[in-house]
């Protein structure tokens, strides 16, 4: 690994590789500029969240007043709560459904697998906005079918006012699961494909029943993929604006919807404060997950695994589409 170290530290190399040093310098400068590009905007958002003034453009002393304002904002907090609920349910459903499907596909006949692959591909290749539209259409049609039936049933049984099914947080979850389930499935299947078969076979040879083999041998190897899938599903769901804005119920915005609407109304440092808090929580969560992975990887010994553990959190879908 040639770092821009002094010439001479490379033992056994021909003396001073001038061009090489320039190339190295160019790469480092480029990298530094990209990091600036990535972090200056985020840094400014955080900086202006401490603004004592009323404008996002001018910094007039530091204060926490916008944080207090944000935490007092009933609508922002309700939106935050909605987002957390939607994200958690999406993560739970997408992870369990996706993992179960990935495991079942192992023993499914080839044509079934081909069909699932094709649909998963469709779910991923279709832009999120179309998923939003498609689910909106589904729900509108379904409500059009179901609600008259409910009305009829309730009327004939004389139960009083019939319940009506409407859009709401549950419809957002349903829409988010379509896409995130596909991602979890891809991650878990990739892990299954790369798994050491001999361990499972050894377990069978030692007369372990299938369920026990699954719990003690297969599942521990799958955890990284499952956790990564869950994190991705939650993040996607928590962050999604476009699908949610199609299928959200009236008066129940998610946090991105609330933020988007307040930006439209006019920018105040309160948005910066909300953004910074979300950022802080995200970074803390990432650090915690990273540390857990690191510890687990240490227990698994090899440095190679350590690296891979970090990457498992870091890199979302790196599978080549087939």
């Amino acid at each position: 690994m040639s770092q821009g170290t002094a010439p001479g530290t490379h033992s056994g190399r021909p003396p001073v590789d001038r061009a090489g040093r320039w190339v190295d310098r160019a790469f480092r400068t480029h990298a530094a500029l990209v990091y600036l590009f990535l972090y200056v905007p985020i840094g400014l958002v955080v900086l202006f969240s401490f603004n004592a003034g009323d404008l996002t453009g001018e910094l007039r002393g530091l204060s926490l007043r916008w944080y207090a304002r944000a935490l007092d904002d009933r609508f922002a907090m309700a939106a935050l709560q909605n987002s957390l609920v939607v994200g958690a349910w999406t993560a739970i459903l997408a992870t369990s459904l996706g993992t179960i499907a990935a495991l079942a596909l192992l023993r499914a006949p080839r044509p079934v697998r081909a069909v699932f692959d094709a649909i998963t591909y469709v779910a991923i290749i279709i832009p999120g906005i179309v998923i939003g539209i498609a689910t909106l259409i589904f729900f509108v049609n379904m409500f059009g079918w179901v609600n008259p039936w409910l009305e009829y049933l309730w009327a004939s049984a004389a139960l009083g006012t019939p319940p009506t099914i409407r859009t709401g947080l549950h419809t957002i979850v349903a829409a988010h699961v379509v896409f995130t389930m596909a991602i979890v499935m891809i991650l878990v299947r990739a892990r299954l494909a790369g798994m050491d078969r001999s361990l499972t076979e050894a377990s069978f040879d030692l007369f372990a029943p299938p369920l026990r083999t699954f719990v003690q041998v297969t599942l521990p190897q799958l955890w990284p993929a499952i956790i990564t899938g869950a994190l991705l599903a939650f993040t996607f769901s928590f962050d999604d604006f476009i699908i949610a804005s199609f299928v959200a119920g009236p008066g129940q915005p998610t946090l991105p919807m609330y933020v988007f609407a307040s930006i439209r109304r006019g920018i105040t440092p309160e948005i910066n404060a909300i953004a910074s808090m979300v950022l802080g929580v995200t970074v803390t969560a990432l650090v915690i997950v990273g540390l857990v992975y690191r510890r687990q990887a240490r227990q698994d010994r090899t440095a190679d695994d350590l690296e891979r553990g970090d990457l498992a959190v870091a890199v979302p879908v790196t599978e080549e589409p087939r």
Partner: protein
Amino acid sequence: MATDGRADAAPGRWRSRVVTALLLGPTSAWYFLLLLAPLVILVAFSFGARAPEGGYAPAFQLDNYLELPTRVTAFTNTLWMAVGGTFLCLVVGYPLAYYLATRAGAKRTLLVVLVVVPFWTSFLIRTYAWLTILGNNGIPALLEGLGADDVVLLNTPPAVMLGIVYNYLPLMVFPLYVSLERLDKRLLEASKDLGAGRLATFRQVTLPLSAPGLLSGVLLVFIPIMGEYIIPAMLGGGKVFFIGNALVDLFLQSRDWPFGSAASIVLILVTLIAVSLYLWLGSRGQVRREVSIL
């Protein structure tokens, strides 16, 4: 897992099939109800008419498709911005991924995580950050101090492009980094020992071997840009119009569902065609390389 079905007698296999079907059931239902059936309905809607109060009225006509040329700028805008944005991400991202994979040394893990962190932060907020930077109180105000008046950055195509590169860059860097990091460094040494220069080694060894990462990076960036709404809405201010903006308008404001359905069908088709074309060109390149190696 697969071992039990094979050895067992027919009844056991049958049972295992039922279990498999049951396990696949919920996922299939989800896919069918919320993805496949709606897509079929979307196609049906695209031939329908707009109901007077908005929404869908049954009909069979091609009017919606014939009307699409009125939105042609949204389509061409989106396509060009997606192609250009993907290309820029590649140009900016490849050297960084290469640096991280081969030259970053001990700081590597930290540096990789630093590319990752923005990806996990809110998309909306990352775009909002540029809204304030490019807005009147941001860079234009600084430039005014330097004597350049009336600089408009916000609500222009370059602003949208900047937002695209900023938001999607991490998605390009990850897969590239992974494939470059897996690259066997001995191949580079071998190329050098055989007298190949820096550029020749890059062109003939590094680039072909990072092709899988390049492929998935391009797709990961290109596909979501095709459906982009937030960036043009916030940084384009209605002056740079994507299909996504048109779709939000058609479905949520003017409630012309049939026309919106036709537009989304065409969006899916354009995306599919672009991706297939890209994959086809990519696989042709692969064949040519294999031949040249021989």
